[in-house]
């Protein structure tokens, strides 16, 4: 165990996996000489050389496609999209090639590929650079979608991703990069996909989050405890596909109330899926409709006040909980 930031835990995961498996290599825009735009890959070029740590042109579709091809050819690449905002340009490759080739080829082809990308708003990067679209990726069968909220999960999940034979979309909230935590150093430490994490036990309401929104959920739980003497159970989904609804449903059966927090826009967001599933599977247990606390349905503005007004906050979560009592 060592304490480290999430960006370092991610780097450790890649390092260890590269040492374990010679088929793993990394490519992406500015992951080499620049050190990665969020310094996640810093030092890896020096350690592993240009063959295994490849700076690429700015060509998202091309490099994801090359990653898919290399995976089909027996390698296990990691392609970094720098940020989720640029991954739109590679979406066709992700959705039509990576996600479907195994099924369409009747199991002949597989695409063991990790696609990492930073996501999230809150840094005043304005509308084109502040997307939270974990749910968009989770919609496509054939993909796995992972979104850690802390350093240990980040390491264990990323290592697990490199041991998967499928394409894993690995989404890192920029607000989490500097979050610190204890991280196991066992080289075989893995966090399995599809296992939500109960971060805090409680009995009055279930608050569900993932990636960045876990932190609003936790802060809201503290506020509820301190200010209202309410006990909130907080669940971190960790992966959206596969999705561990069992943990959520069991919790809701206990608390009879559920709030979902996500950074993405509300309308058509993943919270809708979660909300619908909670209703479908725990209808008779619900004392109030499941609530969604999400981003306002507007492109995120640069101005700090506007941006914060748009993004979901812990106060919004508390308000949603109080409204359902």
């Amino acid at each position, binding site marked *: 165990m060592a304490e480290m930031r999430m960006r370092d835990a991610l780097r450790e995961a890649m390092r260890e996996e590269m040492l374990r498996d010679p088929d793993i290599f990394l490519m992406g825009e500015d992951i080499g000489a620049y050190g990665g735009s969020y310094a996640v890959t810093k030092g890896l070029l020096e350690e592993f050389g240009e063959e295994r740590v490849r700076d*690429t*042109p700015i060509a998202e579709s091309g490099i994801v*496609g090359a990653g898919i091809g290399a995976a089909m050819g027996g390698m296990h690449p990691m392609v970094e999209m720098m940020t989720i905002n640029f991954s739109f340009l590679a979406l066709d490759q992700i959705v039509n090639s990576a996600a479907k080739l195994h099924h369409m080829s009747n199991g*002949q082809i597989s695409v063991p590929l990790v696609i990492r990308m930073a996501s999230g708003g809150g840094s005043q990067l304005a509308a084109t650079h502040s997307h939270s679209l974990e749910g968009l990726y989770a919609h496509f069968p054939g993909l796995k979608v992972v979104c850690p909220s802390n350093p240990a999960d980040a390491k264990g999940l990323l290592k697990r991703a490199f041991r*998967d034979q499928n394409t894993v979309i690995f989404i890192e909230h920029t607000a989490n990069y500097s979050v610190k935590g204890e991280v196991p150093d066992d080289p075989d430490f893995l966090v399995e996909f599809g296992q939500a994490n109960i971060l805090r036990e409680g009995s009055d309401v279930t608050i569900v989050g993932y990636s960045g929104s876990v932190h609003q959920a936790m802060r809201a739980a503290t506020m509820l405890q301190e200010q209202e003497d309410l006990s909130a159970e907080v669940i971190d989904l960790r992966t959206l596909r596969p999705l561990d609804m069992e943990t959520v449903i069991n919790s809701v059966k206990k608390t009879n109330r559920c709030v979902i927090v996500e950074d993405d826009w509300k309308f058509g967001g993943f919270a809708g899926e979660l909300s619908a599933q909670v209703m479908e599977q725990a209808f008779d247990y619900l004392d109030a409709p499941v609530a969604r606390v999400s981003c306002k349905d507007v492109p995120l503005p640069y101005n700090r006040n506007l941006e914060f007004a748009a993004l979901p906050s812990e106060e919004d979560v508390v308000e949603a909980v109080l409204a359902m009592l």
Partner: protein
Amino acid sequence: MKSPTTAGAKPEQELGAEQLGMFLYQMMLMRRFEEKAGEMYTRGKVRGFLHLYTGQEACAVGAINALEEQDKVVTHYRDHGHALARGVDPNRIMAELFGRQDGVSGGRGGSMHLYDVEKGFLGGYAIVTAHLPLAVGLGLASQMKKQNAVIMCVFGDGSVGEGEFHEALNLSVLWKTPVVFFCENNLYGMGVPFHESLSTEIPKLAAAYNMPAVSVDGMDVLAVHRATRIAVDHCRAGNGPYFVEAMTYRYRGHSMADPELYRLKDEIEQYRKRDAIEKLKAYMAERGDLDEAKLAELGERVEHVVEQAVDFAEQSPNPPISTLMDHLYKETAGG
């Protein structure tokens, strides 16, 4: 020469009678296979989109026979010819067109998505140009794993307008991946003449990336074969990618649904006069490598193979509905 493959042969080397016979057989097979596939479509046995290869046979036969066993082929949705040239079982191709369990893709892919990994046939791709970056990646894997495999990447003239064309060519030269970019320029992308969708000549553009690029007569199987052998050798020697444009023509519509409003029957007739199969026959006859008996025999063989393919397809069952969710994810060892 024992093996039917001509790979590794010096470009200037003449092809033997056996090779030529094999080329002719493959071209005739493709022609007949496609006629049958079209017929089966009309009879409702084949559904979805069906793009016939008729007229372009010299391209697949010339190019794909330049490959060795470890090499790989990726192509677009007009893929039956390439699969046949690569030795994929005609029975299983036809079964795929029928959507049956014994199809090369288990009935999941259909005409546009044929896969036979054992044969190094890594697929038909129905999103125009999407397989070009894949070819670069396959080339990279070959390079990194020192497999000495060359990737034959086949696509149409319409493909050249897409951004991924540019991204793939650039990446491939930068990384020196062993990819033959083989463009079958049949003059049209659906109904649009290629010079109306591209502001320049295709090889000129390819050459601008600092990649060797040539244009050959795609109605001449020997010319195609000669050019692609050079290309394959270049790639195998570690010199990076190579671009070949083959000027060809499709006799049929873009797909079975094409009303062909955009071209005159006359044009088709002009090209039929330059038919690649007839050309090869004439050449072989002149060399004394083909007589009536041999031709009849080839015709019968082809007929037999195609009939058998239809029988095989008819008899193959539909995949059970219980298999719907199969192969959604590959199981991970220990996970």
